[in-house]
């Protein structure tokens, strides 16, 4: 049965993925609850236990954060600007080490699958490589994992899924912003990562293009069933793509609320945006996020 956990703990496990919104209460108020009962430890892909991190300047970014992510789950993370969302991803990828607490990663090299891949907010495409070579970059770094023919096949398939099959031999400078973001996403997907991290991946793209990309991303994530953590400011993006959305408090970040998300029909995300269930979920997240932003301002004023 569901148990109330200590504030700040979030468990997102696929076997407890909530039923579609109709007939289900998707929100919690007050302290964050665990979304599920405990399951077998093997289901946990990533665990952050009581993690804290401060920058050398003394800025306390994360304090006592606990998150447990199960295989196959998709978790969105939203919070006030500067609350430590991107820092959280750096802690997960080991680009930063926690001052306290523990990060347990139950993933590693698995054949030709990358342990982890990330889509950064900034442009990381290599300008001297074609689109095809950028997408297959992981296998250029680790050439013994797959043959060139296998890489080409995989890259070709992925380019076709986002409508970029004609641009395989183009260079990044020849692409629009939306196309570059698609290529960056494909480069992270091509290595079939066990954990995919998305750090505001489409924030630089105009909204109509972003919605179009969301549909392609959703279809790909559904097909390949990749465990995903998405950090975003875009609440609609979190609702469109993820199974659950965690709200972080203002800095130092801790989990304050968890909202399960399950749209009944994801075949047309643009149309889904007009449905009652989408608007309800969006409204709940909006309220929760606004509360954290106000709380953060009050705390800063003291």
């Amino acid at each position, binding site marked *: 049965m569901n148990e109330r956990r200590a504030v700040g703990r979030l468990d997102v496990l696929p076997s407890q993925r909530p039923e579609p919104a109709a007939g289900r209460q998707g929100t919690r108020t007050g302290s964050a609850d665990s979304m599920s009962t405990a399951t077998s430890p093997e289901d946990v892909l990533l665990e952050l236990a009581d993690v804290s991190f401060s920058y050398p300047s003394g800025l306390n970014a994360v304090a006592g954060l606990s998150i447990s992510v199960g295989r196959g789950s998709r978790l969105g993370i939203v919070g006030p600007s500067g609350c430590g969302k991107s820092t959280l991803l750096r802690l997960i*990828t080991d*680009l930063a080490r926690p001052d306290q607490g523990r990060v347990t990663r139950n993933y590693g090299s698995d054949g030709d699958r990358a342990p982890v891949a*990330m889509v950064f907010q900034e442009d*990381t495409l290599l300008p*001297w490589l074609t689109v095809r070579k950028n997408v297959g970059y992981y296998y250029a*770094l680790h050439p013994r994992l797959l043959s060139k023919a296998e890489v080409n096949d995989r890259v070709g398939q992925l380019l076709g899924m986002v409508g970029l099959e004609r641009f395989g031999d183009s*260079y990044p*400078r020849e692409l629009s912003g939306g196309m570059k973001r698609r290529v960056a996403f494909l480069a992270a997907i091509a290595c079939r990562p066990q954990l995919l*991290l998305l750090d505001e991946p489409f924030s630089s793209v105009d909204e109509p293009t972003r919605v179009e990309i969301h549909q392609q991303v959703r279809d790909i994530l559904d097909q390949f069933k990749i465990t995903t953590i998405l950090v975003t400011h875009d609440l609609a993006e979190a609702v469109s793509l993820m199974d659950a959305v965690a709200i972080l408090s203002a800095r130092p970040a801790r989990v304050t609320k968890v909202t399960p998300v399950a749209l009944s029909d994801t075949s047309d995300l643009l149309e889904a945006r007009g449905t009652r269930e989408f608007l309800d979920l969006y409204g709940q997240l909006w309220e929760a996020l606004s509360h954290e932003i106000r709380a953060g301002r009050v705390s800063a004023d003291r």
Partner: protein
Amino acid sequence: MTATQGELDLAAVPEPRSSRPATAGSKKHGRLVIYACRVAVLVAFLAAWQYLPKVSVLSHHFRFLDPFFISSPESAAKAVYDYALGRNGSPMIWSYLWVTVRSALEGLVIGTVLGFALGLFMSSSPFWYEVFGVYINAINAIPRIALVPIIIAIAGVGSAAEVIAVVMMVFFVMFFNCLEGGRSVPPAVLDNARVLAASPLRMMMRIRIRYVSLWAFAAIPNAAAFSILGVIFVEMIAGTGGIGLLLLEATNNIDTTSSVGLIVFLSLTGVIMVRLGELSKRRLLHWADSNRG
């Protein structure tokens, strides 16, 4: 269609100049304007050089306008012609030029490779730069021109001393540029490679080396100039051969016209070296933004 009051007729708003697409014709027009401006600058310079010294008030007041010290374009052109064909007592310049250019190129290549390699390595290894950087800066501060007589004494009179002198000058130009190039890699690009479990060596050889190459090519004009300077200086001190020897003779004879003629050859050599560098960069680094102007 005209706009009624309160409406905005976008068709009536002229396109800003910057948004108009560049046609082949407009690009060609642009190139012609550039060439015309280049010719105009050259003509203006030559005209000033030819006629300002003839204004006695100016040439008496400003020593650098005295024709004795700066010759004239007409005389310099004649000297260039005589050197090119070996006429009127002037030796044919080409064998001398080849001696100078060969040593300059050898030193330029060696200095570039060493500066590139060390700059790439140090940009990837902040620890080793912290250790050795202070010594590199100290050596760089030494006036290397003052070391040339010692180099000649050690390496002997010949091309070896010239190449060593050039390497000493080119290395530091290349090193500091390449160091900065390696540091200019966008942090997110490096972070992405780390997330994908790229080793530091792979990151250096697959990512940093590209940015270092960009900055290395940017240093070519300075490096080329220093390579010629280094060779000429050794040749003038040692009197070994090459253009430096001819310059030494012209200087000893206070023959400004011959000196200017020789300088014209050196300038053209430098321009050709830099141009070859630019063409190589366009081919090797086709992806660089700086290629598109």
